[in-house]
C-alpha cells in the first residue's frame, strides 16, 4: 500500500514536470505579455526596466530553469497582473470552485444512481424511457447554452434565483463556503445544477447499464431463492455491484468537473479558479496559468489515487499490491 502510494506520487512528479514544460513553452509561443502589461505611453527606459524586473529579457531556457528552481522550493512565481504569488491567488479561489464541483457531483450521484437504477429495473416503463431521453439531452446540450437558458428562465423570467455571483459566504475551518446560508444556497443552486447535468447523464447511464447487467446474474436469482426481500436485493446486492463502475468513473470525472467548471463559472460569474484562469489567459499571465495547471495535475493524480483505494474497498477481488501502479 505505502509502496503503491509512493510510486504514484513519483509518477505525479514526472507528469507535473513535463506538463510545466509544455505549458511554459506554450504560453511563451502564444505572445509577449509585455505588450499587454506595459502601457503604450511608457517610454523605452521604463519598458526595459519592467521587462528586466519580470525576468522577461532572458532567453527561454534561462527563464524556464529559473522557474523550475523556484518551483522546487514551492514558489510558482508572482502574477504579472496582481503582483501576488500565483499559487496564493489560485488557492484563494479554490474553495469556491471546489464547493461548486462537489455540490454538482453530489447532485449527479444522489439523483443519478436512483434514476439509473429505476431505468435499469424497469427498462420498458415510460418513466425509464423518459429518464433515458433526458440523459441524452444532458449529454448533448452545451453547458454554456443550458446555463444561459436557466438564467433566463429562473433569474429573469421567474425571478426565483439570483443569476450571478456567490452570495453570502461564511468561514468554516478558514474556508469560504456558501452552503451554510440560504442566500448562499440560492446562488449555488443554478451553477451547480448546470455543472452537474453532464455528469448526471453519465451516472444515469452507468447505473442503468450496471443494473441491467447485474439483475440477470445468477447471484441475484440465488438471493431471491434465499427469500431475501426485493428491497434488500436492490439496495445491497445490486447497488454494491453497480457502485464499482460508478465510483471509478465518477472519481475520474471529478477532476474534469473541476477543470471544466471554467464554462459554468464564466457564465454565472462564479468567483472560482476557472474564471481566474480564463482571465489570466486573456492577459497572458503566465505564472498563474502554469500554477493553475500544476494544481489541476496534482488534483488528478490525487483523485486517481483515491479512486484506486475506494475501488479496492468496494471490490474485494481487487488488491492494491497486485495493481500495476
Amino acid at each position: 500500500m505505502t509502496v503503491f502510494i509512493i510510486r504514484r506520487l513519483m509518477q505525479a512528479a514526472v507528469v507535473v514536470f513535463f506538463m510545466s514544460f509544455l505549458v511554459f513553452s506554450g504560453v511563451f509561443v502564444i505572445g509577449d505579455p509585455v505588450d499587454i502589461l506595459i502601457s503604450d505611453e511608457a517610454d523605452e527606459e521604463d519598458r526595459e526596466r519592467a521587462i528586466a524586473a519580470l525576468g522577461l529579457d532572458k532567453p527561454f531556457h534561462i527563464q524556464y530553469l529559473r522557474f523550475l528552481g523556484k518551483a522546487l522550493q514551492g514558489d510558482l512565481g508572482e502574477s504579472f497582473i496582481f503582483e501576488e504569488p500565483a499559487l496564493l491567488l489560485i488557492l484563494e479561489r479554490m474553495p469556491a470552485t471546489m464547493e461548486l464541483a462537489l455540490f454538482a457531483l453530489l447532485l449527479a450521484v444522489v439523483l443519478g444512481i436512483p434514476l439509473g437504477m429505476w431505468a435499469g429495473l424497469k427498462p420498458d416503463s415510460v418513466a425509464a424511457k423518459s429518464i433515458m431521453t433526458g440523459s441524452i439531452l444532458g449529454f448533448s446540450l452545451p453547458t454554456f447554452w443550458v446555463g444561459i437558458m436557466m438564467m433566463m428562465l429562473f433569474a429573469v423570467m421567474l425571478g426565483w434565483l439570483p443569476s450571478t455571483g456567490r452570495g453570502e459566504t461564511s468561514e468554516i475551518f478558514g474556508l469560504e463556503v456558501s452552503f451554510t446560508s440560504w442566500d448562499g444556497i440560492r446562488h449555488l443552486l443554478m451553477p451547480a445544477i448546470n455543472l452537474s447535468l453532464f455528469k448526471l447523464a453519465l451516472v444515469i447511464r452507468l447505473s442503468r447499464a450496471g443494473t441491467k447487467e447485474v439483475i440477470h446474474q445468477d447471484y441475484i436469482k440465488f438471493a431471491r431463492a434465499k427469500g431475501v426481500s426485493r428491497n434488500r436485493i436492490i439496495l445491497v446486492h445490486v447497488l454494491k455491484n453497480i457502485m464499482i463502475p460508478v465510483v471509478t468513473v465518477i472519481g475520474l470525472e471529478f477532476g474534469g468537473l473541476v477543470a471544466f467548471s471554467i464554462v459554468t463559472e464564466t457564465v454565472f460569474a462564479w468567483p472560482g479558479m476557472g474564471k481566474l484562469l480564463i482571465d489570466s489567459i486573456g492577459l497572458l499571465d503566465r505564472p498563474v496559468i502554469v500554477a493553475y495547471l500544476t494544481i489541476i495535475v496534482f488534483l488528478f493524480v490525487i483523485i486517481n489515487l483515491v479512486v484506486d483505494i475506494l475501488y479496492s474497498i468496494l471490490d474485494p477481488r481487487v488488491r492494491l499490491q497486485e495493481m500495476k501502479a
Partner: protein
Amino acid sequence: MAGSNGSVPTLDVENLQTYFFTKAGVVKAVDEVSFSVQPGKVLGLVGESGSGKTVTGFSIMGLVDEPGRIAGGHIKFRGEDLVGASEDRWQQLRGNQIAMIFQDPMMTLNPVLRIDTQMIEAIQAHENVSRDEARQRSRDALGQVGIPSPDERLKAYPHQFSGGMRQRVSIAIALLNKPDLIVADEPTTALDVTIQAQILYEAQKLCKETGTAMIWITHDLTVVAGLADEVAVMYAGRLVEHGSVDDVLDKPLHPYTHGLIGSVPSRNKRGKPLEQIPGMTPSLLNLPPGCAFKTRCPRADAACETAPDVTKPDGGHRLLRCHHPHLDELAEVPA
C-alpha cells in the same frame, strides 16, 4: 405412488405448464409435467440440456422470470397450491421451506459481499434472530458441509474459495433454515468427482436424517443411480418416463431413456463404440407435431405423428409417454 406410505407428499406437481411468451412464439419449456416427492426421498430429474429441467426447478421456486409464466397446472407444497400464490407467500417459503442449489457455484454467490453477509441475510429474511445467533448458525452450517475453520471462512469473500468450496457454501446456505424441500439443479456438475461423491453422500444422509425431500436435477445417470429413489426423464419439456430408479435404469421402456442409458460408458462396453442418440434436442420454439422425440427415434413410425398419452405399462406406478416402448424389457430378467 402417492400414499405409498400414507403421508402427504412434500411436493406434488400436477400438469405443470411453464411457457415463455417470446416475440418469436410461445416456448413450452415445461409442458404437462407431473410428479411428486415424498419426505426423505430423492427424485432424479434427468434430461439433456434444454429439456426443461432447470425451468421445472425454477417453477417450483416461483422464480420464473418474464417473459416466462406458469400457464397451467398445480404445484402443491405440503398440500398448498403455490401456483398463483402472492410474491409475499413465495418469499416466505423460498430459502425457508423450499431451498435451491444452483448449477454454477462460481456464479451463485455475490462477489462483493462477504460469506457471512450472504448467510446471515438468508436467516434473517425468515426469522427474527440476532446477528450473533445468525452468525453462529451460519458457522455451524459451514462446518456441517465440511468447510474447515468456518469462523475464518465466514469473513472471506467468494473469490477466496475454490469452486467446490463455493458449492459447499451454497449448499450450506440452502440448509440454513432446514427446508422441507431442496431443489438441486446439477449442483455437482461443475465439481470434480471426489467432491461430487462427498456432496452426494452428504445429500443422501441429510434426506435420511431430516426427512428433507429433494429434487436432484442432473444429466448424469450415474449420479441418479447412486442417489435417487425415483427418476423422471424429461425430453423437450415433457416427462417421457417416470418410475423408481431400479425400474427405469434396469428396464428402460422409452426409446429415449434406452438411448441415454446406452450412451453411458461402462466397463462391459470396453472397446466397443458408445451408442449415441442421433441428432439434437429440437428447438422448443418449433417442436415437431406429435411425439417430440420421433425425429431421433429408431422406432418412430406413422403412429408417432400424434402425441402419445401417458400410459402405465406395468400397471403399477410407472408412467410412460410412448407409442412404441421397449416392452420386451419388462419380460427380461434384469442382468
